[in-house]
């Protein structure tokens, strides 16, 4: 079976190995929350993020299609299209719910962002929504709650109120959108208070309109046809819509601004169809198409908010998962590091204790043997320095100064590592070969770390090749330039290869298939290579065996960076 395993040679102790293991803490496990576009500073919030390409395209297409729909409606606009009054309550219900939910979602945004602009818009939607029931209940011939003929003017007045109220809210929004967030205190009270006031105002106004129906100057000649007074309303509202559009156009536009422009555009179309093309005649084709525009325009912001919420939620989920993974790998690396440090420091400490015991015994003899004691004490000094180096290595890595990056000649590094690995390979009766390509083979980095990465791969390869029963047992180390500006090193063995089920785990800490392996070598090697801006991977070799390859940027490629 597979005997390849991550390996840390344990027989030579120095600070550098610890240094390599903690390299992971600097480069390996960074939390990349921002990689999928989500950043905690709210840059993707609908209310603050600039409109994306797709959003702009969709919005402009919708705006551009409005004249087309109007043009298509023109020939039939004034034709009466009665008999569909029954749809009106459903229409009103939809309108009411859509606007109310939009208001609620915007209020939620306000609670998170505390921006006055968003609150004005929320109030505008709630105000508009609250007027819908009154409008529907007073619509002649629909519900007859107030009697079929008693209310002639209320419906038109309420409709006019809605048309004036909403663009005013948008104007307020546009005027205040550059303002900084409100102070955190009283956010809930402020938000709920404003929205409830808007709802209350709408309720009281519609109550007043219904109550004083007969006293109001007539907007309607009868249940279907407008009076001459109605002629004043559309120009005013259109002026408000255009003012809103202009205000939104000005300055840096967020995604919400874009959608509000589409909303105003559709409302404008609605009004034009209703008042001019449909001639103000209720239940005409133009009027019905206007209703459809009204529903669409009410839904636009809701849909945008829902899309945003959903995608935000899923992105949030992804980044939480990514962060958890990063934290886990950081933990594993932490455990790996502490195990290594413990081992590397325990060795000199054990040696120091035993040397000190020996020295004491030599001195406690009836004839103290000072020479022996001296030798034991000088070994203690050596061990102390050794332990100190390990600790210093760790400190360097956790401190600010990272190990210096210098030009490293990979050709001589490979030769050196092969020379070091030769005794072990000869013992295992594995042939070590090397092939280095022509030209400069320099990279920028830490020679000790890179040497450790190569020697780990080499030790694994020898271990794998040794388990080949017959046939050639060899390990080939290749080093060459590959365009553009890269140096590649590969360590190829004639072992049994990597089993498919192990392949995805071999670079994990503590993963090993050897009974005495620590399962750290490959993890360290990969960490080192990645910290040098390279990549380490494994490939199968025919007819059997594995090749671990890594690439590093060539020295000149990194020199100008």
């Amino acid at each position, binding site marked *: 079976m597979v005997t390849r395993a991550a390996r840390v040679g344990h027989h030579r102790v120095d600070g550098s190995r610890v240094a390599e293991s903690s390299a992971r803490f600097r480069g390996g496990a960074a939390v990349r929350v921002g990689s999928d576009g989500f950043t905690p500073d709210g840059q993707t919030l609908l209310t603050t993020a600039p409109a994306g390409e797709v959003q702009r395209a969709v919005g402009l297409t919708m705006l551009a299609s409005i004249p087309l729909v109007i043009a298509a409606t023109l020939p039939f606009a004034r034709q009466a299209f009665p008999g569909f009054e029954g749809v009106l309550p459903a229409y009103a219900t939809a309108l009411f719910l859509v606007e109310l939910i939009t208001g609620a979602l915007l209020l939620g945004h306000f609670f998170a962002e505390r921006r006055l602009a968003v609150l004005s818009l929320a109030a505008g939607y709630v105000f508009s929504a609250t007027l819908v029931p009154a409008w529907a209940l007073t619509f002649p011939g629909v519900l007859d709650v107030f009697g079929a003929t008693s209310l002639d003017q209320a419906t038109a007045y309420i409709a006019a109120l809605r048309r004036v109220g909403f663009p005013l809210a948008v104007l307020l929004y546009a005027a205040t959108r550059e303002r900084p967030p409100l102070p955190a205190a009283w956010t809930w009270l402020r938000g709920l208070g404003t929205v409830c006031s808007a709802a209350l105002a709408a309720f009281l106004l519609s109550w007043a309109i219904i109550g004083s129906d007969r006293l109001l100057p007539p907007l309607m000649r009868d249940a279907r046809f407008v009076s001459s007074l109605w002629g004043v309303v559309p120009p005013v509202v259109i002026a408000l819509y255009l003012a809103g559009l202009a205000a939104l156009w000005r300055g840096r536009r967020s995604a919400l601004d874009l959608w509000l422009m589409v909303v105003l555009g559709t409302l404008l179309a609605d009004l034009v169809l209703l008042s001019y093309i449909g001639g103000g005649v209720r239940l005409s084709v133009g009027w019905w198409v206007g209703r459809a525009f009204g529903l669409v325009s009410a839904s636009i912001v809701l849909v945008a908010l829902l899309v945003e919420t959903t995608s935000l939620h899923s992105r949030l989920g992804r980044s939480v998962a990514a962060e958890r993974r990063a934290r886990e790998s950081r933990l594993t690396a932490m455990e790996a590091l502490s195990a290594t440090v413990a081992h590397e420091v325990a060795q000199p400490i054990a040696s120091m204790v035993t040397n000190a015991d020996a020295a004491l015994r030599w001195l406690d003899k009836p004839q103290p043997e000072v020479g022996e004691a001296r030798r*034991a004490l000088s070994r203690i000094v050596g061990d102390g320095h050794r332990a100190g180096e390990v600790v210093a290595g760790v400190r360097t890595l956790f401190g600010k100064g990272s190990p210096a990056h210098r030009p490293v000649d990979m050709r001589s590094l490979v030769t050196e590592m092969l020379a070091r690995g030769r005794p072990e390979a000869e013992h295992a009766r594995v042939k070590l070969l090397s092939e280095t390509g022509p030209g400069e083979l320099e990279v920028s980095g830490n020679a000790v770390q890179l040497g450790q990465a190569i020697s780990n791969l080499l030790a694994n390869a020898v271990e794998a090749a040794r388990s080949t029963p017959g046939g050639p047992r060899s390990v080939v180390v290749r080093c060459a330039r590959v365009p553009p500006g890269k140096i590649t090193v590969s360590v190829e063995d004639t072992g049994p290869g990597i089993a498919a089920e192990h392949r995805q785990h071999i670079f994990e800490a503590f993963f090993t298939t050897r009974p005495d392996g620590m399962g750290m070598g490959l993890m360290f090697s990969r960490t080192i290579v990645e910290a040098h801006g390279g990549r380490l991977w494994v490939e199968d070799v025919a007819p059997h065996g594995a090749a671990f390859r890594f690439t590093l940027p060539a020295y000149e490629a990194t020199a100008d960076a």
Partner: protein
Amino acid sequence: MPERNPPRHEAMDAEPIVFVIDDDDSMRASLESLLRSVGHRVVTLDTTQAFLAAGRPAAPACLVLDVRLPGASGLELQRELAAAGNPLPIVFVTGHGDIAMSVAAMKAGALEFLTKPFRDQELLDAVHRGIELDRQRRRRERHLDDLRRRYAALTPREQEVMRLAASGLLNKQIAAGLALSEATVKVHRAHAMQKMQATSLPDLVRIIDALDATLPES
């Protein structure tokens, strides 16, 4: 019977040897110094292969062995020695206080399992115990060798008579069984007792038991 043991020339109390096998230079030197300071003869090695290559020690010995070693590990050496019928006492030292590993080592007959850093007295006591055990084992083996040599020096007839006597038969019964005269049996028996250096019948029984315990059924 195979000649299991090479001839032993060393005196009964040849100076014991403590073998220290550790790959860490300083650790090896410190162990050597400590053991020498209490008067042990110490041989240090950095791999188990070097130990196996040196052959069997010719004196009572004890091994102080690092669990993790390059090449074959300490546990592997323990298995190898046991398989070769050479159960030297082993004191393991390890940098990793690994419970599973120490259980495996103790089950395989290790004398002691010490986690670095350890108290010198614990190591010295364990080594002392190990040497004593090995000394006793060697003494037992030497004694058995003597017995085997003496037994081999008996004539087949003497061996036969001795075994029958040890199984509790009277001279008369032995004579009848072997179709010999009782006087001849007595002579054979006396010769056997003398050659085996047995002073009494129970002594003879013990000798036969000791021999049979180490010999395949014959």
